[in-house]
């Protein structure tokens, strides 16, 4: 017998002893103690008791309640955890082959059982164990710290949800392979080695997973299939564990993220779990579909088994069905269009300019592909060629996520460092701090001797918060806003509460696409109207509902066939989903297409196809009472103009500064005017006048190119830093 076999046997013996001890200390065992003594003295009674127990077991087995559970939910109070001898043999902190990542969110009891099972049953592979706590709080962290065995605790300050939590942990992993394991699982003997073995020897294999068993011992799934409507079919669900139909390895559409093994480098190259599916569900499906689209196989290996409770860490505030249904729609929408293009390889991190001043950019909002993020990251890219630049989001983010957003925007952030937490920010030692915010007062004081407050709009805020944050503004030497419209409101609001507010400058966002000449359509051919904007209600709503009503009227009157395209991201909140449904209902029977949650490239393709762009933000808004509900700048207007589309926007807010009515587009005040102006333009569509307006609009975009924005910010940074070696720049007039 080899040493490994001996150690394995010893571990099994230890586990059996622990189970026996648990039985002996159980209430039912102690309650039955007298009965056992009695049956020892009376043989007939013993036979009767045995028969009764056998009958009871048989009834239980065939009864409606199903087989007895193999696993019971873990108990809160229990003996302290112990690693066991196998862990001592196979745990490898410095150079592991596999990094097992267990994400914990308020489920320390489950995590403890899971971790103990890993220690007890993992052999044949050098592994490390990362317990990533997804912002569960100090009490939970204290419980995790009490685990007495080899593991690496990775506290994530806030709940970054399933995908991003795992992405952050995968970036911290040291192994060549990463194994994502739900904390509500218990692994079984020999679970890991076959999985690793398969990936080691088959380069064409992208991901593998074990058979998942339910707590009653029956099969939960041996891999999963994706049905055409996006629903999932768990292969072998409910089958007996020895059912021969489900014991062979098989290629599947995906293996569940509850237990999924990949090469770390491929996980990172594939972009990790996609934040599109936050908070949870379908990230694993999407990841495996991306692997399959890249020509890699995804396989379930039933010789490895993991017991799975299921859905124990899901927030009670979320309806699993709702979240799952929404993400199903997202997945289908994405893969209907043949899936996302494979991400380009992660750019190699480039060294920042040596010895140059340090600039720290702060964002209070989660990193996603929105307008504010585009501005801040464009700024980061522009400054990173001349300064040492770091980004400090309020919440922890993975580098994967930053790169994904940067790729969406076509930015190179390879010189930009991503920081987590204020301690890292202080250690960075910034000379200039640029903080973005949506209120009159910055959320935090400048962390550097010089500060710029980038205010998107001074949204109304709670008076107590306003008063608490008022001293922060004094630590900034300058305020930057997107448009004169915002500058007016900022100055007016600031003058009401602060004696001497910092000077306000306007540096408008850049149009990411270079302008191009408008494209003609054959006479009489259908015209494409495009409305770009996220589907959500409340402040800043893009009013797709009103646009649809306007389109229904316009279509009846138009001498040319029309097609309306609505493109934008969706929001998961019920009220926003209801708004999207309302829009779909309004579109019924009309030539309208919805393009939800599409990639930057797809959006660009729609912009390039658009003849007319409509911008509805601000429709129905009282501009004096609710200026915050107006478009603050209107980057989508610029993007439409850049593509040579004829743009129509509300005659208020930022767009009113971009469009010169009748020269570079049209401004309207209400739905009626939108319809009448659009109709007039369509009737004259093939005229030189319309083509002239489109051409002038395209030319006007040149004042908003990324180089212009970059030069303005570089000049401001040099000025703020008193930079003796300012970058060469040419600031347009």
């Amino acid at each position: 017998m080899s040493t490994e076999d001996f150690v394995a046997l010893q571990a099994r013996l230890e586990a059996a002893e622990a189970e026996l001890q648990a039985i002996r200390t159980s209430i039912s065992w102690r309650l039955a103690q007298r009965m056992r003594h009695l049956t020892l003295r009376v043989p007939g009674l013993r036979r009767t008791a045995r028969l009764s127990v056998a009958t009871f077991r048989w009834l239980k087995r065939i009864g409606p309640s199903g087989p007895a559970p193999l696993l019971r939910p873990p108990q809160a109070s229990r003996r302290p955890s112990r690693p066991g001898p196998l862990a001592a043999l196979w745990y490898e902190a410095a150079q592991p082959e596999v990094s097992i990542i267990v994400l914990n969110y308020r489920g320390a009891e489950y995590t403890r059982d899971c971790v103990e099972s890993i220690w007890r049953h993992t052999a044949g592979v050098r592994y490390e164990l990362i317990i990533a706590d997804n912002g569960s709080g100090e009490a939970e962290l204290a419980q995790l710290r009490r685990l007495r065995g080899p593991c690496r605790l990775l506290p994530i300050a806030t709940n970054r949800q399933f995908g991003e939590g795992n992405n952050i942990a995968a970036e911290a992993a040291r192994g060549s392979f990463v194994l994502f394991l739900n904390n509500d699982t218990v692994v079984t003997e020999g679970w890991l080695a076959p999985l690793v073995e398969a990936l080691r020897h088959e380069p064409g294999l992208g991901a593998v997973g074990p058979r998942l068993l339910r707590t009653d011992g029956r099969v939960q799934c041996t891999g999963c299939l994706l049905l055409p409507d996006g629903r999932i079919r768990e292969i072998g669900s409910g089958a007996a564990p020895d059912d021969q139909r489900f014991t062979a390895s098989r290629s599947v559409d995906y293996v569940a993220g509850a237990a999924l093994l990949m090469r770390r480098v491929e996980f990172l190259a594939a972009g990790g779990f996609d934040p599109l599916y936050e908070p949870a569900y379908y990230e694993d499906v999407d990841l495996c579909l991306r692997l399959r689209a890249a020509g890699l196989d995804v396989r379930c290996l039933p010789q490895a088994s993991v017991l799975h409770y299921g859905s124990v860490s899901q927030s009670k505030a979320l309806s699993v069905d709702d979240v799952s249904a929404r993400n199903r729609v997202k997945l289908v929408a994405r893969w209907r269009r043949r899936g996302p293009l494979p991400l380009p390889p992660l750019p190699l991190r480039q060294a920042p300019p040596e010895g140059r001043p340090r600039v720290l950019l702060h964002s209070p909002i989660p990193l996603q592909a929105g307008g504010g993020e585009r501005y801040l990251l464009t700024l980061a890219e522009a400054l990173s060629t001349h300064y040492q630049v770091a980004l400090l989001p309020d919440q922890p983010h993975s580098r994967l996520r930053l790169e994904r957003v940067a790729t969406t925007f076509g930015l190179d952030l390879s010189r930009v460092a991503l920081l987590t937490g204020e301690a890292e920010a202080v250690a960075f030692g910034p000379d200039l701090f640029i903080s973005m915010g949506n209120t009159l007062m910055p959320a935090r004081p400048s962390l550097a001797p010089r500060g710029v407050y980038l205010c998107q709009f001074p949204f109304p805020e709670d008076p107590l918060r306003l008063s608490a944050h008022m001293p922060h503004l004094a630590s900034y030497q300058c305020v930057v806003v997107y448009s004169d419209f915002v500058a007016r409101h900022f100055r007016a609001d600031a003058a009401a509460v602060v004696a001497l507010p910092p000077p306000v400058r306007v540096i408008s966002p850049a149009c990411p696409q270079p302008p191009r000449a408008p494209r003609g359509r054959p006479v009489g051919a259908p015209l494409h109207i495009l409305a770009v904007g996220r589907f959500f209600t409340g402040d800043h709503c893009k009013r797709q509902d009103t646009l649809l009503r306007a389109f229904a009227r316009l279509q009846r009157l138009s001498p040319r066939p029309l097609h309306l395209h609505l493109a934008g991201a969706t929001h998961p909140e019920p009220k926003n989903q209801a708004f999207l449904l309302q829009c779909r209902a309004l579109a019924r029977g009309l030539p309208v297409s919805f393009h939800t949650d599409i990639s930057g490239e797809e959006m660009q393709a729609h912009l390039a196809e658009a003849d007319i762009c409509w911008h509805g933000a601000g429709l129905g808004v009282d501009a004096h009472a609710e200026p915050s509900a107006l478009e603050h700048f209107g980057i989508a207007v610029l993007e439409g103009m850049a593509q040579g589309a004829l743009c129509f926007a509300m005659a208020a807010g930022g767009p009113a500064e971009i469009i010169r009515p009748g020269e570079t587009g049209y401004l309207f005040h209400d739905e009626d005017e939108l319809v009448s102006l659009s109709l007039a333009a369509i009737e004259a569509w093939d005229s030189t006048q319309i083509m002239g307006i489109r051409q002038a609009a395209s030319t006007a975009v040149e004042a908003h190119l990324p180089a212009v924005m970059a030069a303005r910010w570089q000049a401001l940074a040099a000025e703020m830093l008193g930079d003796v070696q300012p970058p060469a720049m040419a600031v347009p007039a």
Partner: protein
Amino acid sequence: MIDFRCNICGAQNQLPAAAFHREAGQCTGCGANARFRGMMLGLSLGLYGTPRALCDLPEDQRLSGIGCSDHDIYAKPLARLFAYVNTFFDRAPRLDLGDRQSAQPYLPADFVICSDVLEHVAPPVSEGFATLRQMLRPGGLLVFSVPSYDMPTTLEHFPDYHEAALVRLGEHQVLVNQRRDGGAEIFKDLVFHGGEGATLEMRRFAQVDVLAGLQAAGFEDIVGLAPDRPEIGYWWPAEQLLCAEVIIARAGPPLG
């Protein structure tokens, strides 16, 4: 008498020739009629190139399929064999062939089955053909049937159908339609399939228009399967006008 082995359940049957019709000739094992057997013949030929019975097909859950209100007689076996979803006009999973937007919640499938549905879809019927094309991946298989007739052009019963409702007048139902131009019209002598209800006949297809509709929607390799396979019970006596054979076709490249 005609002996046949049902190509759905595998049961052996013996029925008099007079018992056969497109909607008759029920299998004693599963209850399938001749049309159902023809649809499954089309599926087997389209997927495997051979006329195999459904009960003999290997499970292949990597093949995805979508049904359009398919009958349980073959929908249930299909769900066991393939990654197949049956859809319905009036309940989830929902699909309205008359609205191509309703194809959006579905991934393009390897095969789509649509039997005797398109005659009930609101005009324009080109939308129905286009929706079927959108349900399929390029090269995907359509197994299709619709009652069609050897006549020069399709007879649209309600050409200006826009906003309409069925209204009971006395013992009969009438269709009240408001045209796009706002005018109203009433239709009597409605034809319902399978009894009164949601299956209002919207048109009588000319066979030439069926083929033209499929081609215009981007289908290729369109093949009609004549009902001349008595050995599997896909057979019925020729009728003077009714064509209605099962058609298989491939989805062509994506349309611009």
